[in-house]
């Protein structure tokens, strides 16, 4: 991948152990600004663990994380978020008692450093409200913005999970299986939203559905048993025989080699839909 100097996010010899299990094994990784990167690997490969280490949800056993060239390994989650690192969770992490409007209003208040203000009513900052509604409308949540999050259909909750991460205009957005558990018909909408994100935002997508992966990604990393197995441009990774063997179904890779990536409707392999679970 590109050299460390213009990378927005990088790791150096990152290791995370859970008892005897090495969930992240000596990962050195670099993500350029504006990347369209996919992180793939079989179940239990350590993808979510890696995202947890990047975002600060988990401390590493050893190694470092760099954001904009700065060592953020010891920073708590909130500080990395403020520095422009945003993420979604494989299992929704939402405020069930909030409305989408309050949820995005909260995220934007923090992004505008207005979140600690205690002497004015929430919702009186026009800039925040305007931006919140704009984002909700763009992510197809406009019609349910005053509804209780906990009672929204799962697909809408999944959209909100993306909206809350996108709202602060992060430099880097890590998407951990954003379409996990979403019914087939609604997966397409989620990918379209991800593809429509601003070009300057570096994106890392974790996804099991190879159709979606090859349609989205310019570069791919394959994680196997915690270690970076292969990485490079999407077309090379697809051709790599080791990848075919370890992770991709032979036939599926053939499909992506023989036919250009589909531009229109997402069809075919549902892949591992994931165990999305309830909010």
């Amino acid at each position, binding site marked *: 991948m590109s050299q460390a100097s213009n990378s927005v996010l990088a790791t150096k010899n990152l290791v995370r152990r859970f008892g005897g299990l090495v969930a992240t094994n000596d990962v050195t990784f670099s993500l350029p600004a504006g990347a369209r990167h996919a992180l793939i690997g079989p179940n239990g490969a350590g993808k979510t663990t890696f995202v947890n280490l990047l975002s600060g949800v988990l401390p590493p056993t050893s190694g470092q994380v760099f954001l904009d060239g700065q060592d953020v390994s010891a920073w708590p989650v909130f500080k990395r978020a403020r520095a422009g690192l945003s993420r979604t969770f494989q299992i929704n992490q939402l405020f069930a008692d909030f409305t989408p409007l309050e949820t995005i209003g*909260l995220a934007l208040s*923090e992004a505008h450093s207005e979140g600690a203000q*205690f002497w004015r009513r929430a919702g009186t900052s026009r800039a925040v409200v305007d931006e919140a509604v704009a984002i909700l409308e763009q992510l197809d949540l406009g019609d349910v913005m005053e509804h209780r999050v906990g009672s929204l259909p799962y697909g809408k909750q999944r959209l909100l999970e993306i909206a809350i991460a996108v709202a602060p205009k992060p430099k880097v957005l890590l998407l951990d299986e954003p379409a996990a558990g979403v019914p087939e018909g609604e997966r397409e909408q989620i990918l379209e939203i991800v593809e429509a*994100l601003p070009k300057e935002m570096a994106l890392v997508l974790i996804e099991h559905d190879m159709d979606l992966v090859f349609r989205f990604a310019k570069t791919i990393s394959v994680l196997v048993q915690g270690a970076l197995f292969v990485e490079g441009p999407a077309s090379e990774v697809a051709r790599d025989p080791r990848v075919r063997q370890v992770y991709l179904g032979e036939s599926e890779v053939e499909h992506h080699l023989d036919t250009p990536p589909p531009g229109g409707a997402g069809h075919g392999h549902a892949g591992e839909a994931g165990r999305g679970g309830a909010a």
Partner: protein
Amino acid sequence: MIDTAAHATQGGESRAMAYFAERAKWRWPEFALWIGAFALAFLFPSRALLFNEVAILALFALSLDIVLGYAGIVSLGHGAFFGLGAYVAGLLAKAGAGAGLLSDPTFGLLISAIFCAFVGYITSFLVLRGADLTRLMVTLGVALIFAELANRMAWLTGGADGLQGVMPGKILGLFEFDLFGRNAYLYSLTTLFLLFIVARKVINSPFGVSLRAIKGNALRAGAVGINVNRRLNGAYTLGAAYAGVAGALLAQTTAFVSLDVMEFHRSADVMLIVIFGGVGTLYGAIIGAAAFKILYDLLAAATPQYWQFWLGLILVLLVLFVRGGIMGLVTGVYQRLTGKGGAA
């Protein structure tokens, strides 16, 4: 492309502004409650001392609701701040000896609030270090330490004999505490009302929303950039200051402070009241305090030996079968009456 500089549609934005305004609006039951509370002083002047106790208890419960209901910190030692506030106000009134600034009750409230806010802020770092169970133990431990200090420092607190010679002056130099307690009640109620308005405003602010967010999902709250512990420090400090004012009111309106203000049962009672009334609702604290006091008096009169049994039974039934305490019932009824969302 998703345009992060895009603007909301006209309709969408005005709908959103209206939504936020509606959420924080005062509703008629709120007006009714406060007008009723003030009217009690004139309708039943002979019961003013009882009402005064309820108002103080309500403020104490309100302070715990900020800590428990909004910051989500389970405290078993909230009584420490109540006791500290009582001693600070008592000592000031004693030093002032009935005249001058030191003996002005409102000045006493202010100093108690500042002192307890300070102690609350310092101890909040200890409390927030641990997870739930550790927090519980730290709050309990801190309260025990203060109770023992009050006991040991008899030269200052009067120890087991209590603090003698507490002589609060006129309120703002104008109103004297009368024998029947009407001015005391009006004084406590006014303090409660003003602090309630402040609390309501804070809870409806971006800060208050972030507290609810932290309580709802601390992981996500951190991921949107909220410095969770810093916000909780703030909420705990506010709760401590409020509890201190409640204690100060008790010292001033009864002109006495004893070790009883530091006892564990106060922390336990106030916890019961908040749960009884409805956690995280502000009004639950007030209604809970009134209900608790009424129930206590009724049961104590009817079954002097078994009142605790009946109180316990009622509490268990309420917690098991009514979600959200008394306020859960009240908002349910209100929503059915008006057909819309609940009060703030």
